[in-house]
């Protein structure tokens, strides 16, 4: 029966080519626009560390003075040096890492490469196992090396290609500023999207920094810190006194493997705040939070506003295209009232006529979906031409591909429901009589 309906559908669609083309085109444009923007949205709001992200948390405490205090306001987005160190040393979580960003001058040993600046991440040893960072060569540094302010460095594969032609560079020396650092590890390709661990750098969808140095070493060797520094009271953004200044400029992440541990850690943050207040360091009532990774992304509205706006625009566009298709299909089905009357009179039940018409709208949906998919590929190609940092990420995945077809066929079937139902209501006798 399905084959027969399909044949009928194709015949009917061929009979009025303009109308069919119009319906297919409207669906295709709507689907193409929606899928392009939804794919970008999907990529940008994705989980940077699937499987791990639910156990990663971003503890926040509020060390500010009472100036501008308002109850219920969120704690600062970063932590100060003393708080970071206290929380790190307390080791209350399964893993913890304190970090900040910077920029370092790399002076290659090779005469043919000019010195250049590279973004750097200063962090502590747990960073690598906690974020499941893959290594191509060598190893991350250890807690002992953190302690000893060891002159060691981990570099990315990209930098390794540039400096050491991709060979195993473990044991080589890298000159940064005036310090000689020993390469102990080379990362394999790693690009968490968004680059969740520090949302202050202005490019949340960029590649990771190329140079990773122990936080203690970076302070000891006076490597420049950049990124956001928020101060209060008499604080200044002076790099040399950043340890003691009333400023927040570090990010602190913890791994907590069970809900019980999460609750306990939240408790600990409150106790910590009370204790600091008793010591006179904190002035505000305890104001803590412990969002997990994805919650933290939401709080920070990581997905650019324009991308969300475009998605809504495209969905609105799809809606208009669908209303349009419903209207055209209604016209088409009702115009065939005579033919449908004959079929009904010859014994086809309402249900069968309904099915026949739904198959026809399904065919339109499939054609529109296929064409829309092509348009989506063109759209994504256009997005990739844009200068934004996430441009390179705009690729369709298998999941999104399937979703496109489901969306196209599903929505057109939905659009076909009303016209098909209306067409079924035709009384066969009346139609035959008017012939």
């Amino acid at each position, binding site marked *: 029966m399905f084959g027969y309906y399909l044949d009928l559908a194709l015949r009917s669609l061929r009979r009025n080519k303009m*109308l069919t083309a*119009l319906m297919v085109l*409207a669906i295709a*444009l709507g689907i193409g*626009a929606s899928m392009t923007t939804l794919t970008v949205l999907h990529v940008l709001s994705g989980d940077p560390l699937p499987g791990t992200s639910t156990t990663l948390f971003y503890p926040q405490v509020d060390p500010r003075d009472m*100036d501008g205090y308002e109850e219920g306001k969120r704690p600062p987005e970063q932590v100060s040096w003393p708080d970071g160190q206290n929380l790190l040393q307390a080791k209350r979580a399964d893993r913890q890492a304190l970090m900040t960003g910077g920029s370092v*001058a790399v*002076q290659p040993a090779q005469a043919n490469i*000019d*010195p*250049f*600046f590279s973004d750097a991440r200063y962090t502590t040893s747990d960073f690598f196992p906690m974020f499941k960072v893959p290594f191509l060569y060598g190893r991350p540094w250890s807690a002992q090396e953190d302690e000893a302010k060891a002159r060691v460095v981990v570099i990315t594969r990209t930098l390794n290609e540039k400096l050491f032609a991709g060979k195993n560079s473990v044991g080589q020396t890298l000159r940064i500023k*005036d310090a000689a650092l020993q390469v102990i590890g080379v990362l394999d390709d790693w690009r968490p999207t968004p680059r969740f661990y520090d949302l202050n750098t*202005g490019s949340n969808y960029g590649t990771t920094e190329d140079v990773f140095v122990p936080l203690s070493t970076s302070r000891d060797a*006076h490597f420049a810190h950049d990124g956001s520094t928020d101060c209060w009271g*008499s604080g*200044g953004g*002076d*790099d*040399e006194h950043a340890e003691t200044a009333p400023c927040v400029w570090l990010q602190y992440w913890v791994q907590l493997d069970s809900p019980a541990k999460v609750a306990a850690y939240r408790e600990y943050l409150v106790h910590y705040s009370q204790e600091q207040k008793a010591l006179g360091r904190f002035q505000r009532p305890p104001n803590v939070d412990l969002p997990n990774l994805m919650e933290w992304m939401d709080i920070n509205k990581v997905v650019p*506003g*324009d991308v*969300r*706006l*475009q998605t809504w*625009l*495209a969905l*609105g*566009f799809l*809606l*208009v*295209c669908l*209303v*349009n298709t*419903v*209207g*055209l299909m*209604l*016209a*088409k089905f*009702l*115009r065939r009232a005579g033919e449908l009357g004959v079929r009904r009179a010859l014994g086809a039940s309402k249900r069968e006529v309904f099915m026949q018409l739904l198959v026809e709208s399904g065919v339109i949906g499939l054609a529109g979906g296929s064409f829309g998919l092509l348009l989506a590929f063109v759209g994504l190609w256009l997005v990739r031409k*844009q*200068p*934004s940092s996430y441009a390179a990420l705009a690729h369709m995945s298998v999941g999104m591909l399937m979703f496109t077809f489901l969306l196209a066929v599903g929505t057109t079937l939905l659009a076909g429901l*009303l*016209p098909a139902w*209306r067409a079924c209501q035709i009384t066969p006798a009346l139609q035959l009589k008017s*012939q």
Partner: protein
Amino acid sequence: MMHIKPILAALKRHKAGTILIAMQIALTLAIVCNAVFIIHQRLERVQRPTGMDEADVMAIHSIFVGLADNNAGPLIQADLQALRQLPGVQDAVSINSYPLRGGGWSTGVRTDVDAKDSKAHTTQYFADERVLATMGLKLVAGRNFRADEIVQADPQSVPDPSIVIVSKALADKMYPDGSGLGKPIYIGDTKKPTTIIGIVERLGVPWNSVWSDDFYENSLIQPVQLTGPFTNYLIRSKPGQLESVMKAAPAALVKANRMRVISKERGVRSFAQIRDDAYKGDKGMAILMSVVCLVLLGVTAAGIVGLTSFWVGQRRKQIGVRRALGATKRDILSYFLTENLLIGVVGVVIGALLAIGMNLWLVTQFEMARLSLVYVLIGVVALLLLGQGAVLAPALRASRVSPVEATRSV
């Protein structure tokens, strides 16, 4: 217009189709109004002046490497000397940032030394006395810095200046009666007063996103030459010689000192490029929205054509009867035009409400202004005209139906 009653009666028999067309017009109006509003806002932003005379200006971002901390002062002086001596260069200056650059310094300013909260937010530029000439800023009151007033300072600890040049917007914000010249302001948390010695007509901040909109023209220039390894050189060429200077200037810098990094992508840019880079996102959004609007209007028009054509086809016999009973071609034409107008009016009324509702929602979700009603009015007129235009072809076809049709059985 006297045929409204029969039209309404006919529409009642085509409820589904009527509702669908009205709905489509309403949705299209709502989306197009908001999209055009956004497009207009973006384009306005793109054309916003910086206060600079932007022609013949270029910027070079240079970073010294292998330098002990923050003593690039003499090197920068040498660079400036080399740049200013180049043929084709009118003037050059070293500055921490410039309008549309994207990153810079900002701080609060007060007029009352004891005030806790700052009176305005402003950006801080640090440069020597040549900055006005290089940027092409217009001094509207007071005087420029003198060469002997310029101090060298480590960017980590810039001393509070005793004099400053401010933009008119900032001066008026601090002293609304326009008496800012010669008055003191307090920059950041300092207790030391800084005297306004000059006011420039306009000077934009380095940022161009929505968050900086409320202090977009609040700028001040401190007579300070920063000595950090990072610096931006702004260079003004003699009229029409920008192209040659863009080649000569980076070469001259490298010749003066090789231990520096000038980024390949964004290290050397003309101001036209800087403006282009800064507004690429806004422009792209405006283009995308325009395309979507056009396609949307096209789809809606096509939908109206399609559905009306069907109605015409369905009513050939009735049209024939009316023609046989004495209705002129014009009557038939105006019947379909009026019918479409009726549906259109319902559509645009709903659409106008929807457009305003949609905007109210967008305001809560995105950094956006309230929709001005002018857009809605223009949209209403545009969609009604679109509907009339779309219905014209099928209506003309209907008017050509011959009275003979009435006698045919099919």
